[in-house]
């Protein structure tokens, strides 16, 4: 599909009040065609420029409503001219003025959208803090919801599927597992709001990326047809103008959600031991600040592995003892992960029972049979 058509098709699925903010791809394309004609008039050959026979630089200036582009052509040595030749083309300035105008509009729209979303998220965050608190029964359901949200990686730019498809998958999971029904009344409103915000954010991201793509495409076309190579100069120009356009809409979106929503409910993965990859119970904080579970620390000490497994800090493990239990994290874990801790404790006691049995009998307890050690 040609990009112009793709652009229109994508726009149809986005809020109509955004349409006028979109990069005017078709109009800009026409300006490029006119520019090539104007170049001929002033004696600039796209072919020679493309072949690099003419050395030049471009200057962009912001003059109120307009952006003026100046092509500065370096003196030709063989002709012995000693100063730069300056050229301003009406259609070129018209092209970059139009593009810059759209970008400024987009920048304002983005600012407003972000402000509105941030305000909504702040309110949601406060309500969630209460509804998903460890004192409420919904905490584990919320944790599962956010766990699946992470798994869906809605705003993961590297994945080949787009955000909308991944959000659909997430919604499907929610329906299948009936999470909304399992939540208490208060939580249900918050859940609906969360889904609504995700849906809006997906549209925002889609719109931003669409415009990014349109800009990339049109500048590439400009470079290719005129040979002037203005896109790199223009990128530097807009960087100087400090528009508030997010370079990476996906990351911005996922950080907004993480900061105000999903982080409200800690996940066990945030407190996992890097050795057993299970919840770090009981949490030992080494002198180098890395966190491990007590059983793994004991195993490491038994085997005289003295350095920190993560940063290799010398003797971090050797120096650690009961005093290294991180009381703050321990309290937090007791509050947020009672089930996980209980499970881990049961596994640990099984492990110890097997060890004692082996020590007593000299038999190794294997998976389904006993073998002589």
């Amino acid at each position, binding site marked *: 599909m040609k990009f112009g058509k793709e652009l229109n098709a994508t726009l149809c699925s986005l809020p109509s009040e955004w349409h006028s903010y979109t990069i005017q791809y078709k109009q800009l394309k026409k300006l490029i065609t006119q520019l090539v004609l104007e170049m001929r008039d002033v004696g600039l050959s796209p072919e020679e420029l493309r072949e690099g026979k003419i050395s030049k630089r471009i200057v962009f200036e912001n003059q109120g409503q307009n952006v003026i582009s100046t092509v500065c052509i370096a003196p030709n040595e063989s002709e012995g001219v000693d100063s730069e030749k300056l050229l301003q083309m009406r259609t070129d300035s018209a092209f970059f003025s139009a593009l810059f105008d759209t970008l400024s509009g987009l920048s304002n729209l983005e600012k407003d959208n972000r402000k509105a979303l941030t305000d909504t998220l702040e309110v949601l965050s406060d309500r969630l803090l209460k509804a998903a608190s460890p004192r409420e029964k919904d905490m584990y359901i919320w944790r599962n919801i956010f766990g699946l949200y992470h798994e869906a990686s809605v705003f993961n730019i590297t994945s080949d599927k787009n955000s909308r498809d991944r959000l659909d998958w997430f919604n499907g999971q929610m329906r299948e597992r009936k999470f909304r029904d399992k939540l208490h009344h208060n939580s249900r409103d918050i859940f609906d709001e969360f889904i609504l915000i995700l849906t809006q954010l997906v549209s925002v991201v889609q719109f931003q990326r669409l415009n990014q793509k349109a800009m990339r495409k049109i500048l590439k076309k400009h470079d290719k047809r005129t040979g002037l190579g203005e896109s790199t100069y223009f990128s530097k120009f807009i960087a100087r103008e400090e528009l508030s356009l997010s370079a990476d809409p996906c990351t911005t979106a996922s950080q907004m959600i993480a900061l105000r929503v999903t982080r409200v409910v800690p996940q066990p993965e945030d407190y996992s031991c*890097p*050795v*057993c*990859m*299970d919840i770090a119970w009981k949490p030992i904080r080494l002198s180098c600040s890395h966190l491990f579970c007590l059983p*793994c620390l004991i*195993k*490491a000490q038994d*085997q005289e*592995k003295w*350095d920190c*497994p*993560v940063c*290799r800090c010398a003797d971090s493990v050797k120096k650690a003892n009961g005093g290294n239990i991180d009381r703050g994290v321990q309290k937090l874990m007791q509050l947020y992960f009672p089930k996980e801790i209980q499970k881990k404790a049961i*596994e640990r006691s099984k492990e110890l029972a097997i060890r004692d049995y082996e020590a007593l009998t000299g038999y190794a307890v*294997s*998976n*389904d049979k006993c073998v002589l050690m």
Partner: protein
Amino acid sequence: MAANLPRRIIKETQRLVSEPDPGISATPSDDNLRYFNVMIAGPTGSPFEGGVFKLELFLTEEYPMAPPKVRFLTRIYHPNIDRLGRICLDILKEKWSPALQIRTVLLSIQGLLSAPNPDDPLANDVADHWKKDEAGAITTAKAWTNKFAMV
């Protein structure tokens, strides 16, 4: 069998299968979930490009306190890999740390294919060749890749 497999191994296996790294695959054997069949694609720009190298990886009972045992099954002309497929890589020996994973080990091996290190050799004859005549060694490595590692 899976009942007694430490949770860490289960988790690592799941991630290896669900989020594989480019050019690397590792699948546990059906009858022994601690034994992995590994394939590493020769990195682009290296003399091993175009080849697919088979390795075996075994997690001992001590894992992750002790490193996994890894060996090339496909023959390869490389100064840090000997005729038996044994690999000279610090993290598989004294630099092992239980915070490292199967994934990190395989990525390091892939890196070793991109950057052979003849100053820390395991296969002395290959390393000598590499140091005295790098272009010649690379030609041999390419020939071996064509001969043994093409699928």
